[in-house]
């Protein structure tokens, strides 16, 4: 049983793919034109951390106080053990327990 792809799906997903790939490659190609020192460089060096922090903070805050506790525990575990998987599981365990009790 081999399903066929609807032409509409082919186009919609194809366009989404083109957009996404252009952004990925476009960013990298733009970067080679950026200045390599001074203020701009300092901004680019701060970018990865700032971007990742912005990615997680709203979802941590959305979980309330226990979200902050879970994030803090995750941070402590990764700092102590350098084990990302263990840190992730500890964070999830806090949220799991809180939701179980809350039910």
């Amino acid at each position, binding site marked *: 049983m081999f399903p066929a792809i609807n032409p509409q799906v082919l186009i919609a997903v194809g366009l*989404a793919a083109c957009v996404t790939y252009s952004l990925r490659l476009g*960013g990298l190609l733009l970067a*080679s034109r950026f200045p390599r020192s001074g203020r701009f*460089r300092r901004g680019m060096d701060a970018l990865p951390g700032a971007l990742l922090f912005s*990615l997680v903070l709203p979802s941590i*805050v959305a979980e309330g106080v226990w979200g902050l506790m879970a994030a803090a525990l995750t941070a402590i575990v990764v700092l102590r053990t350098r084990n990302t998987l263990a*840190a992730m599981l500890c964070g*999830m365990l806090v949220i799991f327990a809180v939701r179980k009790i809350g039910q």
Partner: protein
Amino acid sequence: MKHRKPEMIRGARANVPVAASAMAYGSVLGVLAAQKGLSWLDMMYMNTAVFAGAAQFVMVDMWSNHMPIFEMTLAVLVINLRYLLIGASLGPLFSGRGLLHKIGMMHLVADENWAVTMSEQRNGTATTWFLFGGGIFLYLAWSSGTLIGLLGGGFITRPEDYALDFAFTAVFTALAVGLWRGKSDVLPWIVAGVAALLAHKFLPGKWYIVAGGLAGAISAMLGPCEIEEVEEAEDVPSY
């Protein structure tokens, strides 16, 4: 060049934790996709061509018998705008590499293997093949997660009961800790956090990621760091 294979394997190994979380929320996407009537081929086409988790969630959400092609493309553009910044931040890693190398490597860059590579780069041991190996491994984990959800159907009807929705947040929190550079990050992270929270509250969709990232980077550009300027001047020749 002869380090290609060991580097890819090292990249794959380093991505095991993030791949586990990608697989967990991939299975959630699969369950949603099954409800929307996607076939396994639709799913794999999307996994392979787009390969971006958040965008795929929104696409499945907008999926219908009459595909809203324009709206969907626009939504994907907005959600994935952060890849412009992610791509730009990979500039130093790719410096000295040819155009073909860049074209071939960039498709499999996702939030996860990018973040792992960035924290590896702090130790000075990241390579483009490390990034790519992580990407392949992540693609396999993501695809199997979505297919398990799609075909296994409904075995996790309420993923939030198991905190699976928090897997993404927890794993990226752990990775963010790895990117912390100390005192010079205090200002950019505070500004990024405030901007992200405000944008999350007042703007639709995923604008908050781009807003926070840009605000943080700009504050680092404008901020006063006289001492660091000197250190940086010494660092420049290494690029």
